[in-house]
């Protein structure tokens, strides 16, 4: 079995990179990583620890151009059985192109390794259900939802080959990049603190940010809060926003409408803080605190800080 994995690596290897490499390794056979980005070879060689047999990094591709990246991957994957991507902005742009280019079945949003019958469990109905999808072609493409598997580390290193293969001129020209400093991207976050209308106003988000900071969590919000402009749209989690599956999701002042639950019920553990004991969110929660956010959150911040200081 030959597996190809695509990653993009700039300042560091992402958690998603470890996940896709580890996933491909568990499919069995060899794992060749095709990489773009400017991360030095020494850092890329750490992918060996997660099962990479070799890494080939193309220094000629310096952008996120899906057309160029897909063309490069296609050139190197003729005999590959599986092509594995993270189901992130890159995977969502490159993998569909490859499916058409290679005429290979594309299974997107995988949450687990293949079943004995060869089907792969995927997220459908925005987290309200799972589907099992089979590829009808011998070569298949899989995109893995972030935070779905725990990467295995072996401590090995692997060889890294630097190549310069220009793939033409990009047709999508990048004018600028806006990156909020020091924040954790939501889809990759392991811990998420989220708040809704129960907070009464955008001026009250300080304690949510404090709690997130104490935990090392990302911040999120419900749809109404993004719609009325209290919080930026990219923080909106739910059926029509970002779907997330962190290890811990803390929901403050969110009632838990079905559309919101859809985007977050892949979370491993859910904590709900709400003054209304009848809020539907408590039915989907593992731990609940019936109480006023303005009373509970400061106490929780205190407790987290004490815990962090003593561990």
């Amino acid at each position, binding site marked *: 079995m030959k597996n190809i994995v695509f990653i993009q690596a700039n300042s560091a290897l992402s958690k998603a990179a470890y996940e896709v490499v580890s996933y491909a390794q568990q499919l069995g056979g060899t794992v060749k990583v095709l990489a773009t980005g400017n991360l030095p070879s020494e850092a890329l060689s750490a992918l060996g620890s997660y099962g990479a047999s070799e890494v080939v990094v193309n220094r000629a591709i310096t952008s996120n151009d899906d057309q160029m990246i897909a063309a490069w991957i296609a050139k190197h994957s003729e005999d590959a059985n599986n092509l594995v991507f993270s189901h992130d*902005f890159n995977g969502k742009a490159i993998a*569909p192109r490859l499916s058409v280019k290679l005429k290979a079945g594309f299974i997107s949003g995988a949450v687990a390794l293949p079943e004995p019958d060869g089907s792969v469990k995927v997220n459908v109905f925005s987290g309200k*259900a799972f589907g*099992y999808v089979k590829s009808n072609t011998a070569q298949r493409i899989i995109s893995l939802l972030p935070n779905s598997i725990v990467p295995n580390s072996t401590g090995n290193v692997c060889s890294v080959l630097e190549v310069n293969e220009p793939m033409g001129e990009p047709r999508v020209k990048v004018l600028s990049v806006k990156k909020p400093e020091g924040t954790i991207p939501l889809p990759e976050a392991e811990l998420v603190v989220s708040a809704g209308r129960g907070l009464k106003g955008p001026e009250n988000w300080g304690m949510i940010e404090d709690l997130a900071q104490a935990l090392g969590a990302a911040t999120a919000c419900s749809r109404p809060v993004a719609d009325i402009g209290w919080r930026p749209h990219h923080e909106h989690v739910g059926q029509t926003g970002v779907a997330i599956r962190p290890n811990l999701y803390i929901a403050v002042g969110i009632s838990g409408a079905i559309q919101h639950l859809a985007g977050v019920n892949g979370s491993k553990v859910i904590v709900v803080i709400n003054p209304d004991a009848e809020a539907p969110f408590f039915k989907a929660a593992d731990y609940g605190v019936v109480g006023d956010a303005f009373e509970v959150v400061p106490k929780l911040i205190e407790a*987290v800080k004490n815990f962090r200081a003593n561990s």
Partner: protein
Amino acid sequence: MKILVCISKAPDTTSKIAFTQDNSRFDENGVQYIVNPYDEWYALVRALEIKETVGADVTIITVGNSSDEAIMRKALAIGADEAVRIDAEPTDAYYVATAIADFAKDKSFDLVLTGKETINFNGSQLGGMIAEALESPYVSIASKLDVSGNTLTLEREIAGGVEVVEVSLPAVVSCAKGMAEQRIPNMRGIMAARTKPLQVVVPKNAEQLTSYVAFASPAAKSGVKLIDTNNMDELVSLLHNEAKVI
């Protein structure tokens, strides 16, 4: 300019999701279908805003059977000029994308818009597949789209941020929140939609590359453990020792 907006039907966002007894198919009993929100709220409405500001001819297209004409009339009522239905079962994204690309390839559309994903299959596959089949550039998960002459300026999601990009037409774009605001069709729109052209075409040579073999519902939570407001140390300790998430 000519804009093609790809729309798909999706169960209403409040739908309870259930499957047939053998878990092989989605149980459509009592399900109300809507236009997939990303296709309607962002792709279609932005196309209409472009029509209103710089002028455009907006065609909507879907792959499905005659029961899908209800959601197509809704899109026409919101303001699309004409509608095309490719008369086939939308078996997988590859099938839908190649059928749409095959229809679009000799019709010189300047811009093809899709939602970033559907709320029923969440694949994010269609736009990239159409782009590849039409050999067009593709901008995925765009939250802003402006047209100036033959050039599009867009903002799109990247890891932990936003990229501002520029691309020449023709192009394919998948649309996300931020691009436009939902519109409710008015009575005039609903009346006008009844007489707008709705063309039915037969797909050629389309095939599917993947199949759903089964569905499953997520396991129910075993019940919430309530913690007193004065006991936040206990909550932290449970998250650490019992749930092992911090």
